[in-house]
């Protein structure tokens, strides 16, 4: 089906189901229960899940297949965001030209950087990409402020021309991003009992693009081109001796990967029209590396899982403060409550970085293949259930190393 074998097709279906039903799956707790803190089914975070999923899928095409560890991928995300916001400023608030522009601009940028950086391999390649990205970040923050609006980030204003759209709405506000008139921000809330499920236009636009991006990545993994890339990872020297020039292949996948990053940046700007320079900082590049390794580099679904986990921690754990903790432990006697709050305080709220750091260490120590390996181990425990097995197996077909 769709040019995929059975396993891949089932995987695609599973991802499709997860993405479509995300508003339900991510909102398992009733709105006014104490556990509602853990609900992640609100538009902004769901959008982030799929957008960073796209970013990580693209990164994994380069790193997972060829083993080239780029430490500057955030630069492409940043370029994508800036291009998209400029489209909103100059052209119109429709997301279509913005997304197209972001993919093209980041593709060109990736071609330039890739052409130079791919002359080197291993850590030398990593440092070259890092250097380019840091230069972009530093310049965007300072000297290029007329283009990037520096520290504040590029925003749309009431003074923008928007030649194909309107400068301001009738009520005097800045118009909002839309796709054929459907506003990205509009949300439909469905109440079922005490649950509230949010269905957001922007999320489904991102989700559709993410499914497409995922499908393309599966096709690349399974194509002769993908095989060639894996051969590069396995043994570059041997390929060179057979008379093959590997540069065109690595450059091609580098540009594709950069375009994925640009697409993610364009979508971020489409959901929330602001592009900040810190999107290009090395920490942002490092984040996508961590997402990919955490989930399982070289696997199809791993990077998406990794992206989800890191964004979940960033957005949910950081918001748990001491008064929330107090309400959770309210059932305990007072002394125990204080003790429990005191201990758990270190891991949530301001301490969310600590939890994330511990998670990195635990996962990589005990699950060398990332979260995907965790899934595989679980599935081995439940061998008796064939349906689940099929889904897990297909993720397994591309081990990390």
């Amino acid at each position: 089906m769709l040019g995929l074998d059975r396993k891949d097709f089932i995987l695609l279906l599973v991802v499709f189901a997860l993405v479509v039903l995300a508003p339900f799956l991510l909102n398992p707790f009733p709105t006014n229960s104490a556990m509602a803190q853990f609900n992640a089914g609100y538009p902004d975070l769901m959008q982030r899940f799929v957008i960073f999923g796209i970013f990580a899928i693209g990164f994994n095409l380069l790193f997972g297949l060829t083993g080239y560890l780029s430490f500057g991928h955030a630069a492409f995300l940043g370029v994508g965001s800036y291009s998209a916001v400029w489209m909103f400023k100059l052209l119109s608030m429709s997301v279509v030209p913005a997304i197209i522009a972001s993919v093209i601009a980041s593709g060109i940028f990736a071609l330039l950087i890739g052409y130079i950086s791919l002359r080197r391999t291993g850590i030398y390649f990593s440092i070259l990409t890092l250097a380019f990205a840091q230069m972009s970040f530093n310049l965007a923050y300072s000297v290029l402020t007329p283009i990037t609006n520096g520290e504040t980030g590029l925003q749309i204003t009431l003074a923008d021309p928007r030649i194909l759209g309107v400068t301001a709405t009738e009520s005097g506000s800045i118009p909002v991003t839309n796709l054929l008139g459907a506003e990205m921000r509009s949300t439909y809330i469905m109440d079922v009992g005490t649950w509230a499920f949010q269905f957001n236009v922007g999320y489904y636009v991102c989700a559709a693009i993410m499914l497409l991006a995922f499908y393309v990545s599966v096709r690349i993994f399974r194509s002769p081109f993908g095989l060639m890339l894996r051969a590069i990872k396995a043994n570059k020297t041997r390929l060179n001796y057979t008379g093959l020039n590997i540069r065109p292949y690595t450059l091609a996948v580098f540009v594709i990967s950069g375009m994925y990053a640009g697409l993610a940046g364009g979508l971020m700007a489409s959901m929330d029209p602001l592009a900040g320079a810190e999107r290009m900082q090395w920490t942002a590049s490092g984040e996508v590396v961590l997402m990919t390794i955490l989930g399982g580099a070289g696997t199809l679904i791993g990077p998406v899982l990794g992206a989800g986990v890191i964004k979940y921690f960033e957005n949910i754990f950081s918001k748990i403060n001491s008064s929330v903790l107090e309400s959770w432990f309210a059932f305990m006697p007072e002394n125990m409550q204080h003790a429990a709050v005191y201990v758990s305080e270190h891991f949530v709220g301001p301490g969310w970085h600590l939890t994330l750091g511990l998670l990195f260490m635990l996962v990589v120590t005990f699950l060398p293949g990332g979260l995907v390996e965790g899934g595989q181990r679980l599935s081995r425990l439940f061998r008796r259930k064939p349906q689940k097995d099929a889904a897990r197996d297909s993720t397994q077909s591309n081990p990390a190393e």
Partner: protein
Amino acid sequence: MSNRLTRRGVLRTGAVAGAGLAVPTIFTGSSARAYTNEPTGSSVTLGFNVPQTGPYADEGADELRAFELAVEHLNGGGDGGMMQTFSEKNLKGNGILGKEVKFVTGDTQTKSDAARASAKSMIEKDGAVMISGGSSSGVAVAVQGLCQEAGVIFMAGLTHSNDTTGKDKKANGFRHFFNAYMSAAALAPVLEKMYGADRKAYHLTADYTWGWTQQESIQAATEALGWETVNNVLTPLAQTDFSSYIAPVLNSGADVLVLNHYGGNMVNSLTNAVQFGLRDKQVNGKNFEIVVPLYSELMARGAGENIKGIPGSQNWDWKLENQMGDRYTGTNAFVQSFGEKYGFPPSQAAHTCYAQTLLYADAVERAGSFDPCAVAEALEDFEFDGLGNGPTLYRAADHQCFKDVVVVRGKENPENEFDLVEIVEVTPREQVEYAADHPMFAGGNLGACNSGA
């Protein structure tokens, strides 16, 4: 039925429990709801968005303390703090409009992206009707833009760039904190008194928006006194060692060094300047001097002894009422209740956040509604007193507060780590006021108030 919260861009269908899927309808504009996140239950949620990780985490923690204290006072707990001294008497300790005040917190990480993500989750998930906090201008401008689009009120925390209420001002955003122009206007006459009118200044400026506006402001103000500007050197934000920027200063003919740096940058550049022995030198027959236009008491601790005798400006200081008299009433009430609860005096960041929360609550009471447009109207051209800064005006034209500015100097013999600065003078409000269309603030447009309806 579960109409506990309403959210932006949303129609609540109110499906009967268990009835399951209602017909999905997507709304794009006009609908029946009154405004974003209208509180319908017995409580109202405010969102406090402060840096909890990164270099400004301690400043964020102090802001959060102030917010918690403000909520406690609004709900009738504690001693009421500045509610007793506030010139308006609408707040009775029964919440806001009788609704209990609840709050959610988030981490801005001092990055505009993360700050917007955090604010969005407060609006979309927690139903916050007002967002406050923050410790840098980049974040403030970014979150202010978001609140404008979402239709909630933004009560800025610590943000000092001219742009927040200048080029990037928004109808839904309000700033109580002072700005770079006011710092410069307040400092200049004091500098003249301290160092004379014949001085040559060398500027080191953090290479981003705030640094530029600060430098522009102080250069204009000091040149008006007759000072000469020898040079202005931009330094990278990520710089930690400023030695290569400071080394040439002494040989440039300048006799004053102005450090347009904030936070970690300020601590490092000041420490480096003192290391180079600049303050022990004589140039042009005068003592070499260093000026730090914006002081942050929390960060000043990191510079320790190096700040002794160095002048700068502050929005507020906890010793204000004791030293400058009753005009600054409210200060002691706030310091008292903050100190009782946490054991040390509050920072200016904490003060502005506390004041912003009370100002918002009071505006809601006067407007009789949480509707952002009604609240904004209540805040515009609002004159008040008793919040520690003396008589203050929230100007309608740009949503900037106008009040006296405190000029401070690093104390020679601090008694403890909270007593690092001494008040030199308070520059009266008239001297720091400017026209709304002043060139340094030009190019912006408040736009129309957005209630999300």
